[in-house]
């Protein structure tokens, strides 16, 4: 059992990597979601075209293959990435593509009366987006963003395939070294669950905070 505490430490080190991937990947995903979502609504056809291309491509191909591309193929074009960089990039781009559709949908669901009020108050397109539409749309995006962040957390396990020592990778190491299977996998199962619960709790809190006094958008 004393030995087990050493192995647990190994798994916890992996948990740190998993957290790091989740946080950084979420940041990239958020940026891509807004770029892609706003891009889909652009007045310029070529921006819409680029955004649609990004979204369809990253939703339509496997995260494994995307990760292998980031790690094994990009260096061939002179862009060497560390396993962490490759993981963050692949996860962020992949989840960001799903997030972009959420951003687009939420923006489009703000009633057109809100847009008209902005025109009547002579706000520019950017002022309208920044001060009126996005603050209302963001509340609508949050629940799905929460789901996406949890998907991203669970998706981090794929980086063990490019030898990044995340939680899942470390559990495999422990299993290989001790021959013990149930305990390391039970541990990471619980850890994933704890992390995802933390994410959904945080999102729910944020949602409640932002939604205060926001019932009925036609007010």
């Amino acid at each position, binding site marked *: 059992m004393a030995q087990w505490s050493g192995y647990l430490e190994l798994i916890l080190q992996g948990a740190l990597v998993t957290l790091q991937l989740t946080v950084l990947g979420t940041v990239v995903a958020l940026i891509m979601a807004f770029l892609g979502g706003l891009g889909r609504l652009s007045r310029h056809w070529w921006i819409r075209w680029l955004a649609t291309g990004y979204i369809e491509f990253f939703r339509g191909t496997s995260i494994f293959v995307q990760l292998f591309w980031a790690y094994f193929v990009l260096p061939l074009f002179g862009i060497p990435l560390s396993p962490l960089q490759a993981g963050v990039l692949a996860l962020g781009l992949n989840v960001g593509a799903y997030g972009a559709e959420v951003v687009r949908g939420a923006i489009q669901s703000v009633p057109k*009366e*809100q847009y*008209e*009020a902005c*025109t*009547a*108050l*002579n*706000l*520019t397109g950017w*002022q309208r987006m920044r*001060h*009126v539409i996005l*603050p*209302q749309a963001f*509340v609508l995006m949050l629940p799905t963003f929460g789901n996406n962040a949890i998907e991203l957390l669970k998706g981090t396990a794929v980086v063990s395939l490019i030898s990044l020592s995340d939680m899942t990778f470390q559990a495999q190491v422990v299993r290989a070294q001790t021959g013990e299977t149930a305990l390391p996998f039970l541990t990471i199962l619980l850890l994933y669950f704890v992390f995802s619960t933390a994410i959904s709790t945080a999102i729910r809190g944020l949602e409640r905070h932002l939604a*205060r*006094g*926001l*019932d*009925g*958008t*036609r*007010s």
Partner: protein
Amino acid sequence: MLQPIIEIDGVSKSFGALEVLKDLSFNVAPGEKLALIGPSGSGKTTILRILMTLETINGGTIKVDGEQLWHREHEGGLIPADERHLHKMRAKIGMVFQLFNLFPHKTVLENVTLAPILTKGAGREDAKRSAMTLLEMVGMAEKADAKPAQLSGGQKQRVAIARALALQPKIMLFDEVTSALDPELVEEVLNVMRRLAEETDMTMLLVTHEMSFAHDFADRVLFFDGGRIVEEGPPDDIFTQPKEERTQAFLKKIIAAGQRI
């Protein structure tokens, strides 16, 4: 006669196959209070929406304050206005909507200060002070920190009026501003508008189904039907001795529905 502040000349507008305005022409004098009445679908709201640049026109021209609204003069001819020109023209016009359209995520005060701060570069404190004066005028100063969802319909509409006034437009458009209100809340909004009409020299265009209010408020009434002006004149003429058959029929229906004129 003074140069009209609004000159509508041969304007037509269609939504698909439906022609809502047909070769419409009329002028509005500076400071005039104009009531637009008529059955639903007669095109009166569309005129306000066109003036606020919420709808484009299909033909004709509109001048506001001596300048083309939907066009720009270019090498002796007219070309469609770009966004920059529309932005400049919108500064002269304010609008109050049937459904208030307040910003639900902002407080009453923020609703009123947002546009002056963003579009006129007003300082935060100045904007706040002016906003409080306006909220005072519409009787909503006490609710400055409330969110729209906490207000009654009548209160929301009074805030919406203050919000439009904060930009100091020369022309105010009121689009059926009491239609969505419970009957007992209508009067508080109409009172604010009466005061506005008495105390300012703003030009006001009012689309309404409140005939007795239109009677008191307006200098001139336009009766619309089928996208055209059927009859126009001082409220006493239109409401007590309408000449056109369609005007008479419309007013008869209104009276039958229980409204006083």
